[in-house]
């Protein structure tokens, strides 16, 4: 389609990427240590975390986009793995699950990715607290942070 081609010519598919080394891999993918964090101008604020071969690939988002009060208590040992001098230097991403019904898009807030972009290092951190689960519906979180109950 010509129209679509024109749109894509104006908006690039991706807008740069940075290699991130996960020395311990991600749970379920222990053998994959290297990923690229890919900016997606058309799907902001979502990004790809993609192995150089293309698989595995994850859609990730900073949870604070929909959950402003989200914080991660990064254990001291993990700060060392990440070469982080202070937690505020870290970027935080949640892995997103996209089902057929887009209103059911969810994010894993229990096992966030903590990334030190300056050093290109990352780690999936498991939160000790059960305050967050592996499946938060983004829609519900947005309604919640707006101070409204979700009504059906």
């Amino acid at each position, binding site marked *: 389609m010509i129209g679509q081609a024109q749109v894509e010519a104006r908006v690039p598919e991706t807008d740069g990427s940075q290699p991130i080394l996960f020395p311990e891999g991600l749970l*379920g993918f222990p053998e994959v240590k290297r990923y690229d964090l890919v900016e997606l101008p058309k*799907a902001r604020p979502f990004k790809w975390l993609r192995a150089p071969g293309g698989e595995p690939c994850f859609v990730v988002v900073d949870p604070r986009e929909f959950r402003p009060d989200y914080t991660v208590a990064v254990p001291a*040992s993990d700060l*060392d793995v990440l070469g982080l001098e202070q937690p505020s230097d870290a970027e935080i991403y949640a892995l*997103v699950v996209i089902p057929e019904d*887009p209103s059911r898009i969810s994010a*894993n807030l229990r*096992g966030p990715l903590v990334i030190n972009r300056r050093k290109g290092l990352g780690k999936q951190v498991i939160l000790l607290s059960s305050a967050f689960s592996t499946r938060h519906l983004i829609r519900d979180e*947005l309604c919640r942070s707006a101070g409204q109950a979700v009504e059906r």
Partner: protein
Amino acid sequence: MLVLTRKPRESIVIGDDVEVTVVEVRGDQVRIGIEAPRSLAVFRKEIYQEIKEANLRAAESARVSLERLAGLLPEALARGKEPSRVETG
């Protein structure tokens, strides 16, 4: 698997710096104390398993075209943000 029998308050030592103590046995529940260096992650197995499965689901569901992503994701954010604008405006 190495299987050892222990009584409450008895321990097992793993390597130089990990100690696992049976704190209490009550019915079908056992309370276990673990002393280990901070560099060692200690979790209930269920949460490991849960996050592993969540990662696999995330990888599976990310196999969608960028066109679908571009259409769906901002919509999901925008749709939820509408009440926020109503609330503050």
